[in-house]
């Protein structure tokens, strides 16, 4: 089904930007305050991050979870070349990446979920 319509209105774009901002910005500050540990106890079981722990775990998680569950990544085993194709496809689908992010994401995935 065509999906572009909602993105055309300024309101929707503003809403999207706001939510994305909350997701990527506020999420980090919260996790930094708590040292990246589990959130409210009642929700911790559902919120467990299946991705391997590392310096870039949260950076990678935050980019991917905008569109899909982290379980979809954690079950993969791919070579660097294969991950490269996937990451570039996700960037083409709108995954937000700043300077250097692509290389960090690729390094994380290859190190922990390689084959």
């Amino acid at each position, binding site marked *: 089904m065509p999906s572009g319509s909602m993105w055309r209105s300024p309101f929707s774009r503003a809403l999207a930007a706001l*939510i*994305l901002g909350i997701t990527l910005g506020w*999420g980090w500050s919260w996790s930094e305050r708590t040292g990246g*540990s589990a959130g*409210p106890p009642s929700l911790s*079981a559902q919120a*467990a991050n299946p991705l*391997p722990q590392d310096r870039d775990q949260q950076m990678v998680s935050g980019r991917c979870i905008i569109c899909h569950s982290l379980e979809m990544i954690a079950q993969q*085993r791919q070579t660097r070349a294969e991950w490269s194709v996937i990451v570039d496809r996700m960037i083409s*689908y709108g995954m937000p990446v700043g300077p250097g992010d692509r290389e960090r994401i690729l390094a994380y995935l290859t190190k922990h979920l390689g084959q």
Partner: protein
Amino acid sequence: MDSRLTRRAFVIHVGAAAALLGRGVPSAAQTSPAPVPGKDKLIVRSPRPINLETPLKDLGADITPTDLFFVRNNYDGPEIDAGQYVLKVDGEVDNPLTLRLDDLKRMEQITQTITLECAGNGRSFYSPKAAGLQWENGAVGTGVWKGVRLSDVLRLARPRPGASHVVPDGNDAPPTPQAPDFIRSHPIWKAMEPHTMIALEMNGRPLPHLHGGPARLIVPGWIGSASLKWLVRLTLADKEWDGPFMQRSYRSPRVEDPTQSYSLQSLECKSLIMSPLDGAKMAAGAQMVQGYAWAGEGSVTGVDVSLDGGKTWVPAALSGAAHRYAWRRWEMPWTAAGGAHTIMARATDSLGRVQPGAKTRDPQGYRWNVIHAVRVDVA
């Protein structure tokens, strides 16, 4: 309607992300995601989009109960109120249609027992690993589907002579505007085949949302992705759909020229041993080896069973009903002697296909059908 539902889907998706990230991404690994309500026994391969696998131990019945039936979504779709449901038929037709659910219910209804299997079922068994959901054996199930023939709906719209493909679209939407819509087309010959249907019921109940309700395609014998969920539009076209779910995904290399690929249609010839299960501890004496076999566009003509790891094979009995596009039960009595045994099952079909003992790499890990083996210990 489109805009409203899409925005709602967006809020659900991004809201979930915000909710999770808002409390930080926790670090505790190895915790399984929570079960999906109504599907508590299924293995959660992904909670978003929802992808659920049936444990092999729960598959051993002619008809898979709805609460045990696997779920494979490329994107999640918002629920559609049955009273608001509309199906549009357009494109290369002389009589474009707008049909409501009641219009479909007033047409001649057919009821068919049909097996659905995800093209990626068994992907986890490929080595090296192929990208995609790592299904084991349980992205397969057999339902009783009631609804209308797709051909009856298409004839009402009076396709033009140039209409060679049907392009169905569902009410799901990608999570970003740049990601491609989930669309795959079908050649008109398969769309007009009298078993191809728009299902409105599953196992005697209105089609549940998780299975594509209120209305979905059932394209029998073909890989599961052909049976589009939440069907809201059928466009007749003069060529195959050119989007990535047709031209990149659901394709395998050609045998005669692996640099070329072809779009997957029929399922492979395949059987699974459903009893005993791998690792079972069994008592010596009278036992039954039992399972199901299916063959997409073919029909299962036999299943051979080996009790000695593939050295010798004995024909199993095909039992139960034989439906054109459903799996067939097979069974073989076995007098189990003490010790370790490797049991294998190998199906053969009417197209001359035999399950292989090994399979060359498929880049995207599709249509795994290597002979299923289980190891058991008899006390």
